């Protein structure tokens, strides 16, 4: 019960406020409730559309294919793909961090990573409906156009100021050949536990590593790293950085 309240602070606080209000000043309470009803009705009306649109995007857009297209030489097309990837992905901005980190290590440019993170944050296709509904379609379109322009300018500035080394040097201190899970990003989907049941286990809605590393299974380990939807599994390869550069 306490945990439930902790997880839903806002709704519980609002219920409490209404309860107090209905005791102290009932007419204010019913006025507030009727004020809210209009917004509630509008919200309920667009919820099914938002839901279905999320489903369509999720089922249709081949994100893995898009992800192969933003290296340093990907040019303008790479930026467009970055914009699309960010716009169609669901979830809050921090869900973009581990995915972008993975893309960086695969050669994505700083510029494209900034575009993905920013678009991920601001341009959510299903959310555009909510914006058009509660503000206005013109408002939504104008803000969208201006934001896209701003994102491209920002990405180009970042590309000049931040060098690849600034970003890549962050967790080099970690031991080589080590497997670990970034707990804050794990959503407990259980895909990793399905691939390697003797390594991973879901406990308290988070994946944990239980087994010892067995190098013969490295193919499956790589698969679990690749398949993790939030890229929360990190595997530092045995090969040193110099080897990577040589290849």
């Amino acid at each position, binding site marked *: 019960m306490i945990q439930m309240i902790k997880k839903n602070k806002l709704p519980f606080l609002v219920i409490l406020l209404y309860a107090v209000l209905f005791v102290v000043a009932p007419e204010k309470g019913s006025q507030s409730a009727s004020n809210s009803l209009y917004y509630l009705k509008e919200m309920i009306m667009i919820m099914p559309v938002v839901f279905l649109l*999320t489903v369509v995007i999720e089922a*249709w857009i081949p994100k893995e294919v898009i992800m192969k297209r933003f290296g340093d030489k990907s040019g303008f097309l790479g930026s467009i793909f970055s914009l699309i990837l960010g716009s169609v992905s669901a979830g809050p901005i921090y869900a973009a961090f581990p995915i*972008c980190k993975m893309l960086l290590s695969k050669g994505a440019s700083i510029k494209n990573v900034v575009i993905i993170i920013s678009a991920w944050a601001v341009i959510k296709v299903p959310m555009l409906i909510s*914006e058009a509904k*509660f503000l206005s379609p013109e408002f939504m379109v104008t803000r969208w156009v201006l934001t896209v322009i701003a994102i491209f300018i920002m990405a180009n500035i970042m590309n000049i100021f931040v060098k690849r080394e600034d970003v890549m040097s962050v967790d080099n201190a970690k031991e080589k050949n080590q497997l670990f899970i970034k707990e804050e990003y794990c959503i407990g989907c259980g895909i990793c536990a399905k691939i390697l049941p003797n390594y991973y286990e879901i406990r308290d809605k988070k994946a944990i590593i239980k087994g010892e590393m067995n190098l013969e299974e490295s193919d499956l380990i790589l698969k679990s790293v690749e398949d993790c939807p939030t890229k929360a599994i990190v595997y530092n390869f045995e090969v040193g950085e110099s080897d990577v550069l040589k290849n």
Partner: protein
Amino acid sequence: MDVFTRAFYIITIVLTLITLFRDKKKTFEAMKKSKRMMGSMMGEIVGIIFSIGLLLTFIPPQMIKTALGSTNTLLSTIVGALAGSITLIPAFVAFPLVGSFVDAGASIVPAVAFLTTLTMVGVVTIPLEKKEFGLKFTVARNILSFVAAMIIAVTMGVLL
């Protein structure tokens, strides 16, 4: 139901039917995922919507108009952008909140600043971002996003 919403209903229903027709399994998987995401937001959505009712009852529109109206746009825009930077609520529920303020007479410039920094600048998520991309990247991105939000807001004010 207005024309806009009706058009969206028709488009999405057609798209969903096509998706279902092409790949049933994939569609249901996507539905499960989407349901979980929306479900986790439900509490917050209802909470925000009922707080809007409270706000509108206790803060008279006249006050919103004077505080956030077009008389002192610069200050209210900076406040809006700062408020957006430190808050972490889904943009999806921010739209009705901001919409209610605009309906009550607030200027759209601070509204845009708030909406844009709300999603692009994340003071709360800076530690996470720093851990992944380092200090330089994080600071540069957040400052640039803040400036961009202000510029977008002012431009919107001129255009609309």
